[in-house]
């Protein structure tokens, strides 16, 4: 559980994630972000939409501090990209649940261990790990497949395991990078519903997607990004 207090001195809840005037250039390609501003409040569901190559994934990378802005700043919980130390980055990520288009499960471990890994890194006790993992797998409807290896699962099931891994640590926010991009419509809908349910229980969700139809149907806050600039 996060023990951070998101209320400021006036009692208003502070955003979980804030990006101020971030500019970022990839040294190799020269592409990147021109100017990004984004803020996500606790419990909020935000879509980050834009065409391929607009910089959606880079914005998420800024949040989980895989890349750093050349100008501006990114604040995640109590960590600021300007002051954060390299050794703090794992602790930044423990406040986040990250889901990718390509699932990124550990191929050499079964479903239970994949989900448990996110807790093991925090030094959680064995009993606690078992309880939380089974609960997370229950939430995504995969308790019965806990002993399967990732390659024995369908794409939709793999993504649900990734979702279970993302929420098992009770994160402040779930970052989802095109989570339905590799899935058939039925599996995509299931994953989408799960994200909504996770959000309904109080976890913020920031979902990057280029699927405009889906976004319009949901009626959630939308941040548009184009040519590396948010609108």
């Amino acid at each position: 559980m996060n023990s951070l207090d998101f209320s400021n001195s006036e009692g208003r809840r502070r955003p979980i994630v804030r990006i101020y005037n971030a500019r970022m250039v990839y040294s190799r390609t020269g592409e990147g972000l021109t100017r990004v501003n984004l803020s996500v409040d606790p419990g909020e569901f935000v879509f980050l939409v834009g065409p391929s190559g607009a910089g959606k994934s880079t914005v998420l990378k800024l949040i989980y501090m895989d890349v750093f802005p050349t100008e501006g700043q990114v604040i995640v919980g109590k960590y600021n990209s300007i002051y954060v130390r390299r050794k703090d980055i794992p602790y930044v990520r423990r406040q986040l649940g990250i889901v990718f288009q390509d699932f990124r499960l550990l191929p050499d471990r079964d479903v239970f261990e994949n989900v448990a890994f996110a807790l093991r890194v925090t030094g959680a006790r064995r009993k606690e790990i078992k309880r939380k993992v089974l609960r997370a797998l229950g939430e995504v409807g995969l308790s019965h497949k806990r002993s399967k290896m990732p390659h024995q699962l369908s794409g939709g099931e793999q993504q649900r395991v990734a979702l279970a891994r993302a929420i098992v640590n009770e994160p402040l926010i779930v970052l989802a990078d095109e989570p339905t991009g590799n899935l058939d419509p039925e599996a995509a809908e299931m994953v989408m519903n799960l994200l909504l349910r996770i959000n309904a229980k109080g976890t913020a969700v920031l979902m990057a997607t280029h699927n405009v139809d889906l976004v319009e149907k949901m009626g959630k806050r939308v941040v548009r990004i184009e040519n590396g600039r948010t609108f």
Partner: protein
Amino acid sequence: MSVWYTVRESLEGFRRARMAAAITTFTVAFALVLMALVYIVASNLGRVVLNLRARVQMEAFLDPSLTDQEAQKIEDQIRAIAGVAGVEFVSKEKALLEFEREFGEDVFSVLDENPLPASFRIRLKPEFRRSQLAKQVADAVGKIDGVDEVVYRGDILALLDRYMGYVLLGGAIFGVLIGLGSVLLISNTIRLAILSRANVIEIMKLVGATNGFIRRPFLLEGMLQGLLGGFVDAVRSGAGGQSRDPESHRGGSAFVFWSCGSGLATGLARQCRCSS
């Protein structure tokens, strides 16, 4: 993080990547075999040379007219010379006995009296078993009153001095090349093993694993692979009958050192990759 987790993960690592673990283990073993070969050749060569040098004895023949008392004084003088490790007096009678034993002839059947002079057999200190230094000792002994002649196999020492330099240099170059080859072989195998797991490491980082958390099982796994490689090599050398050789005990500890070292190197290399 519990120690149990680290141990279990490192053992699991073997199961998860059986082929990579086997290749690393046998590469370490193979590299150790190469190193062991160099070690065995070098140590045997060293022993042969030391034996040859030790065999070179100096003999100072005395004036036949000297009495035993005078000979005793000469012995003291010889002992005082730097480089002399020991002196043995060979009386005329003893020299005669040795002659008869060696040639099987009775001298008195040909001559009326014993023609053999008394002598001192001089053993040199190990550091003086070199052509130049042995000559210094021989000259010093030769200057003592009552010493007629000093005889020793200076030619063998000169030969060893002249060619051993080349042999040692060649051996050192060969050893360095083999060592370098072993290191390259091991490091390349490790690099491949790391590349095969780069994806897994990336995912671990994304879920908030610290570098230490990722490293420790890899480190232990690397050490275990190194030790296993050393063990395979030890079994090989045992099967080859080298264990009967007392030198192999020293070799054995060198293997253990090497295997631990390579294990550590394996782990550390992985550690470097993790923190990049």
